[in-house]
């Protein structure tokens, strides 16, 4: 598909005052300009099509191969027979625990840091340096975070391979995203709100707590949840810090090891004894993971629109 080139429109307005030489030259140039426009937009459209198609193919592939694996047993039972039978309940629970734990850790610290950076800190060299550090942190590969978590939480703090270590690692990984989106959201709050509040004799903290944060909350939450959702799908950070090959029981404390969806996919696809036989289970697990992340994002979007409506 390409965009309609408009030079074929039935009504051609003749310029009564020629721009330079002749009427024909103008018309010829006009046609060229419009052809060029059509070409450029077709290219852009193509780029969008490739993106959308890629996404669609991945999703389609996942659903087509995985939907048969999704049964009640699959969702509510633990794996059996060297993971060729049974379900993935421990993985679902594990991933949910890790995501919630990461949120509980990263939200308060991330939001507090962002508030300090954008509302209190004096602009200057130090602030620029800190920002640079945070931005760089966002580009650090996830496996490095995994090693960091292993060294700090698992070994140094002696949390062991546990939900706690994994959640802290995932949280640390999402911190730059959370700080970034929170700062954006705070910046989007009109300054007139701050002035109005301060002008009434509110302190800076009262202004932030009562006016700025509530106004920025929808943006903060959405950004934060998207960041956590992204982290929850990662394998590398939890590989050394939280996830195990197999555990038949659901976690009962923060210090338990867990199974997790991304790691389970990795295990089934590379390390199992029956890699081919468990293909449907692999796709099924991937489908569940995607649905979970999608659900998390959907929740964020719904929550945001509810908050927005409330403040209207």
């Amino acid at each position, binding site marked *: 598909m390409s965009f309609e080139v408009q030079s074929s429109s039935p009504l051609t307005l003749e310029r009564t005052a020629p721009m330079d030489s002749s009427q024909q030259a103008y018309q010829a140039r006009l046609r060229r300009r419009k052809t060029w426009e059509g070409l450029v937009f077709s290219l852009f459209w193509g780029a969008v099509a490739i993106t959308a198609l890629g996404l669609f193919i991945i999703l389609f592939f996942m659903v087509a191969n995985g939907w048969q694996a999704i049964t009640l047993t699959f969702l509510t039972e633990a794996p059996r027979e060297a993971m060729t039978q049974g379900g993935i309940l421990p993985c679902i629970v594990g991933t949910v625990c890790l995501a919630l734990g990461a949120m509980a850790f990263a939200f308060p610290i991330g939001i507090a840091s962002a508030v300090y950076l954008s509302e209190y800190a004096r602009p200057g060299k130090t602030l620029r340096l800190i920002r640079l550090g945070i931005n760089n942190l966002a580009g650090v590969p996830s496996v490095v975070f995994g090693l960091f978590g292993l060294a700090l939480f698992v070994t140094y703090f002696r949390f062991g391979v546990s939900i706690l270590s994994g959640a802290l690692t995932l949280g640390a990984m999402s911190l730059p995203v959370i700080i970034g989106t929170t700062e954006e959201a705070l910046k989007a709050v009109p300054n007139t709100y701050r002035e109005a*509040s301060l*002008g009434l*004799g509110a302190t800076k903290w009262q202004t932030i707590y009562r006016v700025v944060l509530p106004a920025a909350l929808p943006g903060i939450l959405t950004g934060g949840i998207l960041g956590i959702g992204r982290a929850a799908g990662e394998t590398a950070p939890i590989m050394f810090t939280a996830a195990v090959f197999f555990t038949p029981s659901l976690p009962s404390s923060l210090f338990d090891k867990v199974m997790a969806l991304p790691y389970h996919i990795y295990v089934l696809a590379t390390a199992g004894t029956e890699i081919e036989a468990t293909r449907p289970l692999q796709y099924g697990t991937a489908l569940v993971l995607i649905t979970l992340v999608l659900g998390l994002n959907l929740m964020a979007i719904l929550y945001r629109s509810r908050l927005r409506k409330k403040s209207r």
Partner: protein
Amino acid sequence: MNKNIKVSTKNLDFYYGSSQALYDVSLTFPSNRVTALIGPSGCGKSTFLRCFNRMNDLIPGSRMTGEILFDGQNINQPSVDVVTLRSRIGMVFQKPNPFPKTIFENVAYGLRVNGIRDRESIQERVEESLKWAALWEEVKDRLHTSALGLSGGQQQRLCIARALAVKPEILLMDEPASALDPIATQKIEELIHELKKDLTILIVTHNMQQAGRVSDFTAFFYMGKLVESNETQKIFTRPRLKQTEDYITGRFG
């Protein structure tokens, strides 16, 4: 100290970084009177207005020298508690800026941040303030709906009510009607007339007729300097300086 002078400035200079915005401004504001600050855009009148509640403190690199005497006390010194100062000197901004909260919560905001907890006294003060700002009749049935649903004129009167709720002694108004239609503007002007019974009002305006209608005194600023100030009637009928006359009659500015 003259009891009729609520606030005055002495040799006030103001700088944004290295550029000076106000030059040696000395001016007095009588109690319970409306003083209009007029002058072309960029003449420093808004900057001047924002000196009184130290709102300019928020601008990095700004600096103010000279004295501002508020009931005889110099408020241009670091030891002054700006939080208390701002609860005594209220401000209404150019664009209506209600918080994205309910009408009630907007007016109650100043009370709450100042530590008033008692529900009944908050309710009373909210009603009183809305009546004071001539908005009560229009909103009494929708107090708990969002303030953003009000019209521009109503929003501005809500902002006035919000400022009045903390019982300021001075009200600073920065072109309060410039974003409003003529009818809403008229309501604001009538309101100003009522309010001066209780407060001292400083108003920045671009509208000469408005300055003429609402103010008792007028000060004309140009390029950061106070050019002329006098009773409004005198300024408008017999200005001392040609420059003032030219501005007021619309020959420049």
